[in-house]
């Protein structure tokens, strides 16, 4: 019953809003270049289906590549920090600077340095920078959260630093890392979109470029269709990472266990 309501209530709201929207556009005769009706958006989506899917694939490729790059780089950096306090003290401030500098501001530089002939690499680097920090922050906190007594026990039995890392620190860090990954998944998509915007039309071929182009041509229905696709993609990424989290933590972590049992 609870699950049915979880789906039925938001669906009801969506139906009401879409119905009201459709009616209002027709009633006040709103021009299609200001606000297209849901039916017009659906038609634009169907008409441009192939090209929109090609764009989606382009943006999704950059997003997924950036997400994996950020996960690997962030985790590796966190592991390096956990092994050497000196390394962490030296480089953590730079990770923070990278995080707080607006990526839109450094994106043009990266595009120039990497070159427009490698546009997808440039987009990927920009999106990776955006997604990197939550992984680093989550993994660093997680690696530090390991039970001191458990580590002492490892030392008592002659464990090597690698064994302590692999058997004690990394499993402890997993829930923190997964939480960082959920944030990073959404950020990788945002990073890919921002990068496409900065790269401008004519070079990139993703959904953000479709939004810019549709806006320029006043094809607002197509713009909405691209926008919806982006939102659905974001939700899908979040849902996939939540599922991964649940699969990995369901046996042991409080966050993945329901309390009524």
């Amino acid at each position: 019953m609870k699950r049915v309501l979880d789906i039925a209530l938001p669906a009801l709201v969506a139906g009401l809003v879409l119905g009201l929207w459709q009616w209002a556009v027709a009633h006040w005769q709103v021009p299609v270049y200001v606000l297209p009706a849901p039916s017009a958006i659906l038609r634009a989506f169907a008409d441009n289906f192939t090209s929109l899917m090609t764009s989606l694939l382009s943006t999704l490729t950059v997003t997924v590549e950036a997400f994996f790059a950020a996960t690997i780089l962030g985790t590796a950096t966190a592991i390096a920090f956990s092994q050497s306090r000196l390394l962490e003290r030296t480089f953590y401030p730079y990770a923070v600077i990278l995080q707080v500098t607006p990526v839109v501001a450094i994106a043009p530089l990266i595009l120039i340095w990497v070159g427009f002939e490698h546009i997808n690499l440039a987009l990927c680097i920009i999106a990776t920078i955006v997604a990197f920090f939550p992984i680093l922050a989550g993994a660093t906190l997680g690696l530090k959260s390991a039970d001191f007594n458990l580590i002492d026990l490892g030392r008592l039995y002659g464990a090597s630093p690698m064994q302590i890392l692999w058997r004690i620190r990394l499993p402890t860090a997993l829930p923190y890392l997964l939480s960082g990954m959920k944030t990073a998944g959404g950020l990788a998509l945002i990073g890919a979109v921002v990068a496409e915007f900065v790269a401008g039309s004519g070079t990139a071929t993703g959904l953000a470029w479709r939004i810019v182009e549709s806006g320029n041509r006043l094809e607002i229905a197509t713009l909405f269709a691209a926008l919806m696709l982006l939102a659905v993609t974001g939700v899908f990424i979040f849902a996939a990472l939540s599922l991964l989290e649940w699969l990995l933590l369901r046996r042991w972590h409080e966050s993945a266990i329901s309390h009524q049992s």
Partner: protein
Amino acid sequence: MIAFKGVGKRFANGTQALRDLSFTIGAGEFVSLLGPSGCGKSTALRLVAGLLAPDAGEITYSGGKPEIGFVFQEPTLMPWADALTNARLPLDLKHAPRDFADARALAALARVGLKGFEHAYPRELSGGMKMRVSIARALAAEPKLLLLDEPFAALDEITRNVLGDDLLRLWREDGLTVLFVTHSVSESSYLSQRVLVMTPRPGRIAGDIALAKGRDNRLSPQTIEAQHVISDALGRAMAA
């Protein structure tokens, strides 16, 4: 088996935890280290295990450093691993073959009464059962010396008594040497053969009490008598 001679330990923050701590423990003994909280008994236990190094005096082991099992006040289990994997940890860290390690860990779990719970995760176990897994893990390495740091302090009295009796049985069966840190007079009076009473910080040995035989249960006259002797010694240690 172990000899402490004039051992001192000061922490980085300037706290002098132990000063001039001397005692010996023979093979096969069950010795309690009793003192008020903060007197440095846990520090002494970590020195025995080699997890800390003394900065004065010396610690010697006759016949080389023995295989050590360590049980903390908290169960200190890996929440992501089942009871079997937890109990197997010492053997896994020593790269023991999996079959051999599994057999040892299963036997250890059976000995602490956890047969059938091999694949339970810590969160599915009660506080007492988690402590049993922790003891099984210490036994899996087949230690000569078992160090326990107030292992039953966080448990209810009923569970504490049952686990105490189990510990006595394991000690008798295996011919272990046990060093048991506690702040409970009644626990030390019943479980141990000898009680080392420590002063408040910086901890020294204020009394070394060999307990009489015949303490067959917690309420036998001999046990009650032992409690009086230990309490008196503890009172003198606190006043010193």
